[in-house]
């Protein structure tokens, strides 16, 4: 319609350069634009004038009122940061504390010559290069009248020395503050984690209001995962200040709400025993209560002192940690990659029953080598000449490779991967920590996605004994062992057991995610469990239960760290201890399991000789508490839960 109207007016045959419109139309459009631009500008001027009138009203008509208010405007709102929640173990042992400390603060406005003052101050209180660098960085974002922290954690001697010389340093003050301390230090570094100063990356994602006045934030572990619970709600106070911004008096105060106190499922005694049992050898151990998924102990060795990180770790300390053997900062239990080896056999045996390729009584003849029909390559047993005819129980207790080669081969990789996935392999367990590893569950899909290659039947065979592409994290293995102990009930492993809102409040238990049942036939379990009990009685971890009141069930694993075709294998020292990653998984009491434990050592002779004793040490630390609880249970005769922490 518009076009017709324009056509009707114009009878142009010349063409303009724009969009092939007739010149006349272009001229009409141009004049239309000019009229509109004029009208638009008229509106703009009108709006700007209206804005100017509003400003005039504020600045002339109401000037006196606002001037008075501006002069009276001496009340500042200051944030009061909340106290961070404390962290306890399941029995109320303090793991993360807030302790009073003192720091030096400098108000730049009151210092005439900063460099000279700092040089003089360094003769009274030692100032490191790190301190000075951080001081300069912090000073940038602040105003001259705002004080800037210079040295954290003054010792009593330093405070005394400074107090004597204080007159010489106007603008420098000793200020009390709360700092985070980890009394048990290295034992919990990988679980509780640590807090550190809020850095620019944190600032980009933090709610400024919630963190006004707060200097630290959880960086790793529980401190990070439960930051929202631990942080609390800031309060504020309204302070009257003079024209130079000096506070005169406090007018109003809304107290901050401290963060929630957390009770972990970890038992500090078991944790300490586990840490000690490693005697410094690199590895990891995890203990889980199979009835509810509560993690009772979780250690990574070697560890480090988390207190170093709280107020900014010095370059020297950090360099030492990075250079230390076996990477102490590596969170092995959560994200370490280990070849599970024979610890997979109970799961593979169970998968054979579950998928129906084997019955519990079926036997296999082990002659020392297994062959895929029609292939010449042999897959070996540990014992030269084989173990003879074995059923599932014997296959587990003697760790007979041939049995599991044939089960895996008969199942095929797809069914194998499907059943093993139910035990949580190949994906994070969902524990309440950040940065969990996934491991590798060998499957066609995984190989295609990561190696872009098809699957070969021989790879199914070695997957049956936990070799090949298999990678598990210690937490995954512990979680799977707990499912074995719980006869197929999967609980998401978790560290947080209860939270306490105020100091006087009773800790309230944190509801656990609903368990799921993943393997269904009751009868299948008995053979596997019997095999694992035989491992301790007569098999590869004989005698481990010596003096232990409960029936143990377990399985050893000894995985080769290097492929035998690998050059490193021939070049490294020939001692067996260098060549093997050793593992052990166990649960007890076998009839009614209440704890499942795994231990991994990065170097050892065999699972039975080196990893199993660590598991035993953990069980020994767990036993007294369990006996006590069982006695209490018998006394009351009722199935009361453990007393709240």
């Amino acid at each position: 319609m518009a076009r017709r109207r324009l056509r009707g007016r114009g009878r142009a045959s010349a063409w303009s350069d724009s969009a092939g419109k007739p010149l006349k139309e272009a001229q009409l459009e141009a004049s239309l634009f000019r009229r509109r631009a004029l009208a638009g500008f008229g509106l703009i001027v009108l709006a700007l004038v209206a804005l100017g009138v509003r400003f005039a009203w504020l600045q002339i008509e109401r000037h006196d009122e606002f001037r008075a208010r501006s002069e009276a405007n001496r009340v500042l709102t200051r944030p009061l940061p909340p106290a961070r929640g404390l962290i306890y173990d399941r029995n109320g042992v303090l793991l993360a504390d807030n302790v009073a400390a003192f720091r030096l603060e400098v108000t730049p406005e009151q210092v005439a010559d900063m460099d000279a003052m700092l040089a003089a101050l360094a003769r009274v209180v030692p100032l490191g290069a790190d301190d000075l660098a951080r001081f300069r960085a912090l000073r940038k974002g602040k105003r001259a009248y705002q004080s800037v922290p210079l040295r954290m954690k003054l010792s009593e001697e330093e405070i005394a020395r400074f107090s004597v010389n204080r007159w010489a340093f106007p603008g420098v003050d000793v200020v009390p503050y709360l700092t985070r301390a980890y009394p048990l230090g290295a034992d919990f570094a990988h679980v509780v984690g640590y807090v550190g100063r809020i850095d620019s990356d944190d600032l980009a994602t933090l709610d400024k209001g919630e963190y006004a006045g707060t200097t630290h934030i959880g960086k790793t572990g529980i401190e990070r995962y439960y930051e929202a619970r631990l942080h609390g709600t800031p309060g504020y106070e309204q302070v009257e200040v003079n024209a130079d911004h000096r506070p005169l008096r406090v007018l109003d105060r809304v107290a901050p709400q401290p963060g929630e106190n957390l009770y972990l499922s970890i038992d500090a005694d078991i944790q300490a025993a586990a840490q000690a049992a490693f005697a410094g050898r690199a590895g990891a151990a995890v203990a889980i209560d199979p009835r509810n998924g509560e993690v009772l102990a979780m250690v990574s060795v070697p560890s480090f002192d988390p207190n170093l990180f709280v107020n900014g770790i010095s370059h020297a300390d950090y360099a030492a940690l990075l250079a230390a053997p076996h990477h102490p900062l590596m969170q092995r239990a959560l994200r370490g990659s280990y070849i599970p080896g024979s610890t997979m056999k109970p799961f593979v045996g169970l998968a054979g029953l579950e998928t129906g390729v084997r019955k519990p009584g079926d036997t296999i003849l082990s002659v020392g080598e297994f062959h895929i029909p029609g292939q010449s390559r042999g897959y070996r047993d540990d014992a030269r000449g084989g173990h003879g005819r074995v059923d599932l129980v014997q296959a587990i207790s003697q760790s007979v490779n041939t049995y599991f080669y044939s089960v895996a081969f008969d199942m095929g990789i797809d069914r194998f991967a499907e059943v093993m996935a139910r035990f949580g392999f190949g994906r994070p367990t969902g524990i309440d920590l950040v940065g969990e590893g996934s491991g590798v569950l060998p499957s066609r899909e995984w190989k295609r996605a990561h190696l872009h290659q098809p699957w070969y039947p021989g790879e199914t065979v070695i997957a049956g004994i936990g070799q090949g592409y298999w990678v598990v994290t210690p937490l995954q293995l512990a979680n799977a062992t707990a499912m074995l102990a719980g006869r197929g009930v999967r609980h998401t492993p978790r560290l947080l057991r209860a939270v306490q809102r105020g100091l006087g409040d009773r800790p309230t238990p944190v509801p656990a995610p609903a368990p799921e049942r993943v393997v269904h036939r009751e009868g299948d379990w008995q053979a596997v469990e019997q095999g694992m009990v035989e491992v301790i009685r007569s098999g590869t971890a004989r005698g481990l239960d010596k003096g232990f009141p409960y029936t143990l069930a377990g399985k050893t694993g000894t995985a080769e760290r290097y492929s035998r075709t690998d050059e490193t294998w021939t070049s490294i020292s020939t001692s067996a201890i260098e060549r093997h990653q050793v593992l052990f998984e166990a649960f007890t009491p076998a009839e009614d399991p209440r704890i499942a434990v795994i231990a991994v050592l990065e170097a050892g002779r065999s699972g039975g000789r080196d990893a199993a004793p660590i598991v035993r040490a953990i069980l020994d630390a767990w036993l007294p508490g369990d006996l006590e609880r069982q006695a209490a249970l018998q006394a009351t005769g009722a199935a009361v839960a453990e007393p709240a922490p």
Partner: protein
Amino acid sequence: MIDAAVARLGRRLRGLVGRPRVDLPLLGALLLLMGVGLVTLYSASDLDRGLVLAQALRFALGLACMFALARVPPLTLRNWTPALYVASVLLLVAVALLGEGRGAHRWLDLGVLRFQPSEVLKLSMPMMVAWYLNGRPLPPGWTTLAVVGVLIAIPAGLIAEQPDLGTALLVVASGAFGVFLAGIAWWRIGLLAAAVAAAVPIGWQFLHDYQKDRVLTLLDPEADPLGNGWHIIQSQIAVGSGGLWGKGWHRGTQSRLEFLPEHTTDFIFSVFAEEWGLVGVALLLVLYAFIIARCLWIAASARDTYARLLAGAISMALFVYVVVNGGMIAGVLPVVGVPLPLMSYGGTSAVSILAGFGVLMSIHAHRRRAAPW
């Protein structure tokens, strides 16, 4: 040979002076505005040279963008418009899916730098509207309007969803001005305005709670003196206490004592009004009016419909910045994050605004010979 080179250089120089690629009055006004901006920022940041230097560097980057864009002929811009528009909308989708930012998803992290794709829309939106209208009979009918409506609504919806109502508003405005300048009939404007007015109660339902709060607070700031009302009250105290002549440079207590929030960014106008008074405010508004007028004059002398509509929409969008920010400062409009052009501290907005002027400079350089009036 040297003679020839000298002659060529002379021609080049004469060409530059006689027919410069940039519009000198506009450039002068912009440089003046940037100067005022830096001086105000120096005071508002409590004499923080680092902050001022950072802003000056952004201006330098923006000016470089402006001069670079001034060399691109409008025809080239026109050819690239649809691609640019689609790319910027895809960036918005990327931000919605994997962006990061404080509560709001606005930023896209490119590893080297993080930037707000919505800033690109401030330019690509009027370009797209101008491109589309350029090929349509004008004044636009309902079909054309419907298409333009969709072109505007897609990015605006994505930005409002981030949520960044201020930028969404600017993007809608820059598109709508294109339609207005294309000569949409007044009775159609009336009908559309009525429809928008009718849709306001429905749109209200989609606002976030904090956005509703900001609007409600405007009606009665004293009801919430420590929350949302704080900004409005403190800003008005700053402006009102400035009086006719102002308190003088770096004498404004409101910002120095930190009563005024965001005093280097969205609320820098309050600092200016407090320190320079009504006289300063009036001069600043006149400076903005001059810049807008000059831009519209450049638009009117543009060669084709595309260039004309694009230049016109960019200049009128500038006005929206000033009025929305000024209205917020003076307590007549809700608190939305709209910066004051070339005054507020902040990187992407300074660069995107100067890039817009670069497009205007290019249109100016490729103008028709004859004066428009």
